[in-house]
Each structure stands twice: as structure tokens, then as C-alpha cells.
């Protein structure tokens, strides 16, 4: 059993702890997604927008657990937070507001254009909105600047899709770890 657990954590690449009924479960974002574990910070609507948006930007992000990963990091202490946003001039105290503002604006944009939430958009519809988010034309948006939010979310999704041992393997790059990431975040 212990061996299986180590193997599981090793293969998960990144892991997180989630509190369910007072118990701390340590699982990977991918497994948390598969098991539909509850969220600590994000609302159901925010999660739906995040998953649809991230999946359109980096295919595989939803299954890799991007929403659980971001949710977990937003609930962490500043020095434990691993989001790339910490490099980009946004104070840690504003992280939740940054994601909330971006997700609410993205969700509203989808409803305004297509009367649909992000997960229900077709590939073409999602592409239309992503182009608008990165374009120069004014859009209905009151969160962080849309291109910046896109950049950050793309980086987060790239982390969970490509930044793990499984992600390296997926694109044919040897991981060659000195110390494998085998602990909970």
C-alpha cells in the first residue's frame, strides 16, 4: 500500500492537499479533477469558466486539474504559493481578486457574445473570444487587463499540462530529476 502511494505521488508530478469532511487528502490536481473533489476558494461558476477557458488555451488543462491547482494555490500562504503570478508584479494579497476579476469578465464576455458559459462554447466560439481578449478592440472587461490575464492563465495551464513528469513525457523531453516532486504542495 505504501509502495502504491509513493508510486501514485511520483506519477502525479504535482500534488495538493484538499480538506474533505475534516480529513486532509493528498492528491494530484489531475486526480482531484477526476474525483470531483470540492474547491476551497473558487465558486462553481468560477471553476466552470476557468476550466473552459484554460482548456481552450492549453488543451488538456481541464483533465490535468488546472482548476484544482489554482484553487489550492489561492488558498496557500504567500511563501507557499507557487503560481507564476508571483513573478509578475501583482501583490499576493490581490491574487484572488486577480483571478476572480478575470474569470468573471471572461464569463460575462461569453454570455454577451454567445449566451453560453465557457464549457458550452464550440471551438470556434472559444477561438473568437480568445482573439478578442488578445486584441486591441475594446471589449466588455473590468478585471485585470485581458491580455495579461490570458498570459497568466496560459502559464498556469502550461504548468499543469507540461510542467510535470507526465507532461515532459508527453512532449518527448526527459525529466531527469535530481529530487522528484513527490510531496503535497
Amino acid at each position: 500500500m505504501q509502495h502504491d502511494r509513493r508510486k501514485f505521488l511520483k506519477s502525479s508530478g504535482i500534488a495538493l492537499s484538499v480538506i474533505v469532511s475534516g480529513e486532509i487528502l493528498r492528491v494530484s490536481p489531475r486526480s482531484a479533477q477526476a474525483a470531483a473533489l470540492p474547491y476551497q476558494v473558487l465558486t462553481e461558476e468560477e471553476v466552470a469558466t476557468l476550466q473552459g477557458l484554460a482548456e481552450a488555451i492549453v488543451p488538456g488543462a481541464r483533465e490535468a486539474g488546472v482548476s484544482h491547482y489554482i484553487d489550492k494555490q489561492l488558498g496557500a500562504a504567500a511563501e507557499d504559493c507557487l503560481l507564476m503570478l508571483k513573478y509578475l508584479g501583482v501583490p499576493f494579497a490581490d491574487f484572488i481578486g486577480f483571478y476572480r476579476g478575470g474569470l468573471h469578465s471572461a464569463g460575462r464576455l461569453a454570455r454577451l457574445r454567445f449566451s453560453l458559459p465557457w464549457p458550452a462554447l464550440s471551438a470556434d466560439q472559444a477561438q473568437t473570444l480568445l482573439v478578442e481578449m488578445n486584441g486591441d478592440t475594446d471589449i466588455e472587461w473590468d478585471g485585470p487587463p485581458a491580455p495579461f490575464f490570458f498570459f497568466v492563465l496560459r502559464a498556469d495551464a502550461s504548468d499543469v499540462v507540461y510542467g510535470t513528469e507526465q507532461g515532459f513525457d508527453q512532449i518527448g523531453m526527459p525529466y531527469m530529476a535530481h529530487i522528484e516532486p513527490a510531496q503535497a504542495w
Partner: protein
Amino acid sequence: MQRISTEEVFDVLVVGSGAAGSVIAAQMARAGKRVLVLESGPARQMSDLISSQIWARRLKWSGAPVEEAGNLPIGHNFNAGWGSGGSALHQFAVWPRLHENDFKLKSDYGKGLDWPIEYDDLRPYYDKVQAEVGISGDATAEKWRPPGQKYPMAPLPVFAQGRLIDKGFVARGMTTAPIPLAINSEVYRGRKACLYDGWCDAGCPIGALANPLATYLTWAVEAGAEIRNEATVVKVLHDTSGRTATGVEYCDADGARHRVHASTVVLAAFAVQNARLLLASASERHPQGLSNKNDLVGRYLMTHPANSIYGIFNDETQPHLGATGGQLINHDHYSQKEKGKAFGSYQWLIANALKPNDLLGIANTRPDIYGAALDDFMRKAATHMGNMVFVGEDLALAENRIELSEHKDDYGVPLARATHNIQDSTAALAEAAVAEGLAVFKAAGAADPWAGPRIGMHIMGGTVMGEHAASSVTNQYGRLHELDNVFIAGPGLFPSSGAVNPTFTIHALAMRTADHILGNDTPSNSSPGQ
């Protein structure tokens, strides 16, 4: 505010446990001094250095926010470190020396500032540090290299990516040499040799890379120094005359305030936090901040402008192999700083090891690609991508500075606000270099090379050294002009940036300061126990 709970006395207090603080602490402890190192971040062990670009973010700055402005922000949170070892724990270990023409910018070119010392003053300290920690390289191949002892180890191997890009330099009549790296190409003084797996900036847990946990911080502890983590210094204390520091006040992880005293105080908390601490230590005797009578603390803030060049090659490049800092180096145009509208030296760091994710990872080299096209790009780039980095000289400008913000941290200390703009001549330098880099990549066989955005790499200045109090914050040994026993250590002392990675120079300068504090005018022969 909680009450002050303890008062202790040491010979030397060192604020910060990065490259500079570690050297000072080791040298003081070896000399028998009672040393306390106060580090605001958590303790780090080699076992914490997990091979993951995501986990590695724990090593980056997580302290009080730094407000940034300007046309080339300094990128504090990416460049600074958090925890034992400071930013040197995630350094790339690219250790070239400053060149002889980097020391007298104002006298020789009418720009920026002069150092109060010359290359020959620093040379013996470069040699000493190099012998202690080991550098791999080929001094002969570096035809631009200033005089000094040859490297104690042969260079690291050049892999496919480096060999491919080198063809472009050769085709354009340019020269490359193996990068001088503070990474062992063989077992050196008991430390292991590199495995070439490209996890340098995630922290090297085998000790092949000369981070402070592998070198001076560990040597300091072995010599008797105490490292106290989660201890954030909030003020430097001084006597009634204002000429002598008596110690510092710090807050522990629970917010309790403590005072510790010493006959010598060394501030080695990196460029921004050192300046912030001086400004925040204002007193009746020093109303504008400690040793800031001439309003110079915080000024002359610098960062190297840097751009990456990328390309996809037909041949496989194995971009995951080697060191994060690269495999080859070019300084062909370093000696000539005046280049028409452009001004400054620059270097190319060639064939950096790449990972798929993070700020400098493959995915972010083309932020315009997404959806299915991104996956196609990632699969191709993972095996066929090449890259190199332009590192340019910045100019010391008085208006680029660190100031105190109106906002405060959890301990009531004002935050730092860092403003940094580059002049047109520096922008022109970067633009010309990018054009050269793209031409090199085309000559090397990359079909459609592209350049990344200009970013700030490394942080220097803010507490510059100089001959006179009217134009500098410290003397040539890093001692504050207005206090007799407070020293600055680290890149904040640099009056010019040069165009080389600063960590080797930080070590050499700190070694020189340590010798001065100990009363040695020439390099001491003390070396770590092995």
C-alpha cells in the same frame, strides 16, 4: 507591535544569507568572530531543492512586496530569493569577471559612475574565490578575458544545441568559448560533478553548483556562525552620536521584536532591501534615512537589459541538456562600449538548458500560440529548439532609484518602490544585439528565429560605492560614509553594471570587505576546511 523580548551581543551581525552574506559570515567565523546571520526567509536544505520549475518558485522572493515602475522594471520577485542562500540559491552559476573597462565609466566615457577601485584591486579576490569554490571553463578560449588565474576545472561539455548555434557565430566571423560556470565538471574539493540535467535554477541539490548551501553558508556554520531564519530586520540601531551602529532590531515569525547588538553590522539583504532598510532606519541623527545626508541611498538602481533569441532547427538540439546558464559565451563586442547611438558592453549566453514551463520555459517563448497549435509547437520545440540570451550593460542614472512607499508591510515598515528606466542609448544597444542574434540564428540554420521581450536581469546599485560621500553611499570597502561600523555587501555596491552576471563579483567584493574588516589589506589565505 509586540514588545522587544531579547537582547543579545555578537561580534558581527550579517543581514541576509545570500552570496554576499554567506561570504562575510564564513570569513568572520573562520577568524574566530561570533557571528549571527539574520535571514528573513525560511531555512533551506539541499533536500528542499526539488527538480520542478513549479516547486522552484518557493526559492523566489516572497517577502514584502516591491512596487515597480519604469520602462524596464527590475523584476524583483523573479531576480530575488527567499530563504537561506537568497537569490544565489537559484542562480544560474554563470561566473564571468567584470572587464577592466567596466570600472571607470565616468572617466573613460563620460557616463554613469566610476568605481573607487580598479580591476587589479578585485583580481586577487576573484582568484581566491575561484580556487575555493571551483569554476569550470577555458580561460584561453576566452580571448576577451581579463588577467587572472586559469580555471581549476575543464569546461562542461557542449551538447547538440551549443554545437548548432556555434555554427552561426563561426559563419559570421565571431568567437565563442565555454561559459565559465561555478558548476563542477569533475569532483572538486569533495563536491560532486554536474549531471547536465538543466535543473540549475530549481536549485542544485547535489552540490555541483556553487550555491551558498554548497559553499560559504555551510562553511560559515561549520566555522561557528549562527543562522537565524524567519528573522526580518526592521531597523538598524545606532548610538547617540549617530556615527556608530549598536545593532539591529528584527521581527521573528510570530511578530515579536528582538534587538541584537554587535560591533560590526553588515547589510547583505540584496540591492533593494538594503536600500529600503537604510531609508526605513531614519532617526533624529539621520532624518532622511541612515547615511543619507546627500540623498544618495536608493539611487543608481540598475538591471541588465536582456533579450532571448529562439529558433527551431532541423537537427535535434537536446535542449534539456546542460546548464540553465548556457553552454557557450561570446564577448566579441564587450570591449567597445561606444557603438554609435548605442552605448554599452554586452554578452551572449548561448544554448541555455530549457524546460517546458515557467517564465523562461518553452511555452512562454511563443505566448501568441494556443490551442492545438500550442501542443504541436511544444512537441517540436522539446527536441529541436535552440536559444541564447543577450545581456546588456545598464547605465547608472541618479533618477533610477529605490524609495519608500506610502504602503507598509506587516511589521509597519514602508515598502520599497523601485523605479527604473533605460536611456535611448541602452535601448539601441539591445535592439542592435537582437538584430545580431537573429542573424546568428539564421546563419546557424534556424528557419524563422524570433526574439523574446526585453526583461530586467539581475539587480544592482542603490547603495553604490565611491571615493566621496558627495557621490556615493559607501567607501571602497562597502562601509557607509556616515557610520563607522556598518558595511554594505552585495550588488547594491556596484557603481556600474558591466554586462556580466554579477554573482562572481559579489563574492569577490564580499571577500574584499571581509578582509578589510579583519584588518587585512591583501587577500587572506584562509580557506574552507575540506
